[in-house]
């Protein structure tokens, strides 16, 4: 148990690094035929990770001979000398892969070096953040690198906690790193985790969710600002012009209330469980297009057709003009699904009706599956950006409705 705990806990697809489950015949993410690889022995599942090297090496004399000298202690010195030529020649044709490193997912022949590249074909290996999934009972989130970006600059955090009265509160935060800034991936990760922690701390104290959301966005903003300061200490001054930056959108479901908060152009949609009711978009982008429409300078069609449409006018980061967190509180009268997402998704389902159409019928009961389907919708559409979506089912409890 203990000797295997790390690697065997997460057997991964040799094709895409996706975690596998016991008994999988194909990888759920990339369809890699797992039966093509030698079946993992039940007692030594680590073999699956290093198959190309391990299999031939298993029979190699080195393993046997290492055991030999130990047993025959009289010949401890003589044995390695006599055996020396053999293991050397035997080990050379079994290169790097046998040395225990991970095998490249692109060519499946080379070992992955310390920098994360294949020692054979040079391809960068999937990073942990390329595809992330999390499910916590009442909330689920999926984030994907998409098809056109070389890394995932989105991040999310989901959690559940309890209010002072014992009722449950569900939190989902989604952040989208601003690509034109430096280290956007760090910015989004810092913002999402800080906002989440801040809410987990203030909600149980009884802070009103809308106030808590406001404070969380301010705290997230400070954490992103700190990234720029750290950079300023270690690096040149000119880095400051490109301070790390990201958007943030969050939703809290607590006590019959749905509270949303945002900065930038990541969005929250409301999709009622009863599909005959009208879905809605609950956030207003901090974007050039939205501003043009809001001030009446352009109509929506004109504004979104402009190439500046997606330029954001609000973000978290040291070079943001002025932090104006937007928050809103809703009291839905029926059950529904809260869709919290980055523009990597809503670019392929912009209107509330389109988003509702993309959400599968059973998403209210299976949020993780629903989030996976929505990410798939964005990838099918072209996957031009990182895609992140969190789904929170909203339940109208008879009690909550009565007291409200």
């Amino acid at each position, binding site marked *: 148990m203990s000797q295997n705990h790390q690697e065997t806990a997460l057997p991964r697809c040799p094709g895409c690094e996706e975690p596998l489950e016991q008994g999988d015949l194909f990888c759920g993410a990339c369809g890699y035929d797992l039966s093509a690889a030698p079946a993992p022995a039940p007692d030594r599942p680590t073999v699956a990770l290093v198959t190309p090297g391990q299999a031939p090496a298993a029979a190699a004399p080195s393993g046997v001979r290492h055991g030999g000298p130990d047993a025959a202690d009289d010949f401890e010195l003589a044995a390695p000398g006599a055996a020396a030529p053999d293991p050397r020649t035997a080990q050379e044709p079994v290169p790097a892969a046998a040395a225990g490193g991970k095998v490249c997912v692109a060519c499946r022949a080379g070992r992955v070096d310390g920098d994360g*590249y*294949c020692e*054979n074909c*040079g*391809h960068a290996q999937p990073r942990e953040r390329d595809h992330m999934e999390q499910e916590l009972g009442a909330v689920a989130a999926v984030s994907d690198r998409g098809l056109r*970006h*070389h890394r995932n600059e989105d991040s999310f955090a989901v959690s559940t906690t309890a209010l002072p009265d014992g009722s449950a509160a569900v939190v989902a935060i989604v952040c989208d790193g601003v690509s034109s800034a430096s280290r956007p991936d760090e910015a989004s990760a810092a913002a999402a985790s800080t906002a989440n922690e801040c809410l987990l701390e203030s909600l149980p104290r009884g802070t009103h969710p809308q106030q808590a959301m406001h404070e969380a966005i301010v705290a997230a903003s400070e954490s992103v600002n700190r990234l720029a300061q750290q950079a300023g200490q270690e690096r040149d001054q000119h880095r400051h012009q490109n301070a790390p930056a990201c958007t943030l959108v969050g939703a809290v479901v607590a006590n019959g209330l749905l509270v949303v908060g945002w900065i930038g152009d990541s969005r929250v949609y409301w999709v009622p469980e009863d599909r005959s009711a009208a879905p809605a978009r609950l956030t207003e982008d901090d974007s050039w297009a939205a501003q043009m429409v809001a001030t009446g300078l352009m109509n929506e069609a004109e504004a979104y057709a402009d190439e500046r449409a997606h330029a954001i006018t609000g973000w978290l980061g040291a070079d943001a003009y002025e932090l104006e967190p937007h928050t809103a509180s809703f009291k839905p009268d029926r059950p529904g699904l809260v869709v919290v997402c980055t523009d990597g998704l809503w670019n392929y389902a912009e209107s509330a009706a389109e988003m509702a159409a993309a959400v599968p019928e059973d998403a209210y009961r299976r949020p993780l599956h629903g989030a996976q389907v929505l990410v798939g919708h964005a990838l099918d559409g072209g996957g*031009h950006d990182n895609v992140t979506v969190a789904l929170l089912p909203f339940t109208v409890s008879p009690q909550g409705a009565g007291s409200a």
Partner: protein
Amino acid sequence: MANFSKSNVPQFSVEVYQNEFLPEGGREVNGIITVTSTGGGTTGGVPLPGAAAGAAVVIMVDCSGSMDYPPTKMRNARDATAAAVDTLRDGTSFAVVAGTHVAKEVYPGNGRLAVADSRTRAQAKEALRRLSAGGGTAIGTWLRLADRLLGAADVDIRHGILLTDGRNEHESPEDLRAALEVCAGRFTCDARGVGTDWEVKEVTAIASALLGTADIVADPAGLAADFTRMMEDAMGKEVADVALRLWTPVGVEIQYVKQVAPTVADLTGRRTEAGPRAGDYPTGSWGDESRDYHVCVRVPEAGIGQEMLAARVSLILPDPSGGAPQTLSQGLVRAVWTDDMVASTSINPQVAHYTGQAELAQVIQQGLDARKSGDFDGATAKLGRAVQLASASGNEDTAKLLSKVVDVVDAATGTVRLKAKVAEADEMTLETRSTKTVRVKK
């Protein structure tokens, strides 16, 4: 066991300048690798306390008959050699070789090297007085003798200084080439041409094969200062036989590997294989200095969003006792495919600059060749382009040398007229120094 605590080996740092973003279907990846060594030679030639003086130098002086025309040439060469001997650090092994159609040991003789101190320096200078001109020129024999002398020394740094005033007439070009092949990698050598009767391509070929510098000393009176400077540089070297190791993944083709600063030198053909998919390019010995290399590779096509390592560049110091070489420092050249046109179409300023500097060296060479062969239109076009490149990149030294060969009408457009009369020394200076580059303006 070797003593690794010796701290006078320089620290090497590697920086990579590149635009890693490629458009869809893009395959060519360029990177400028800046290698800086610090910590070696910082004592200004004064031996470090406790450190072994690990250098040997052989000075090869041309003593062919032409050195007596004018007689000041031989006298200046003697004085310059004496000045170089004076610059030798105590403890350095050295020898002086007189070169004609054969090579003769002048000091200390008997196939040995002397160890520099006040007594041996005086003896060497005494021996120099007996140098006289007479005979032919066969540079290959000088180099082979220097190689024998240096090879016998138990030192880390082996260096030669070669002075010639005429063409290599008393052996075939093949003989010289064979000698250079034998000596390459065994010692480094700076080469100087004095006067204007020598062949630029011969002298630059020696320096490039033996990873040293080449220059012209048109006026023999300038020899002493030049020899002193060369010897000071040689004394500043702290680590020899450093190689640039390039590892490339399967399917990646190496287009070229060039040194681009301080001078342009194509290293592509000088690769020696070093394990799977890795090759070593020689860089010679290093003191306190910084050099730039341009690596260009072709990677296999990959889809948008993919990222790969196009090359891993490291500096390798071989273990003298034959063990695994030491990796001094390394940098990564990457390729990332993107549909962001702004990212994929921008050219890294360092890459652009050195591409221009390499073209500058090339068009000067082509222009001078065209001029010699009587193709004045071709020469005007090439040298005009050279003037334009030198001016745009701020290579003032080269611009000044060009202005002695052509009349510049407009540097920005590269409009020039060939000068009717050009001093031979000016033309040779331009040709010898055409490979000198400047770094990107900060």
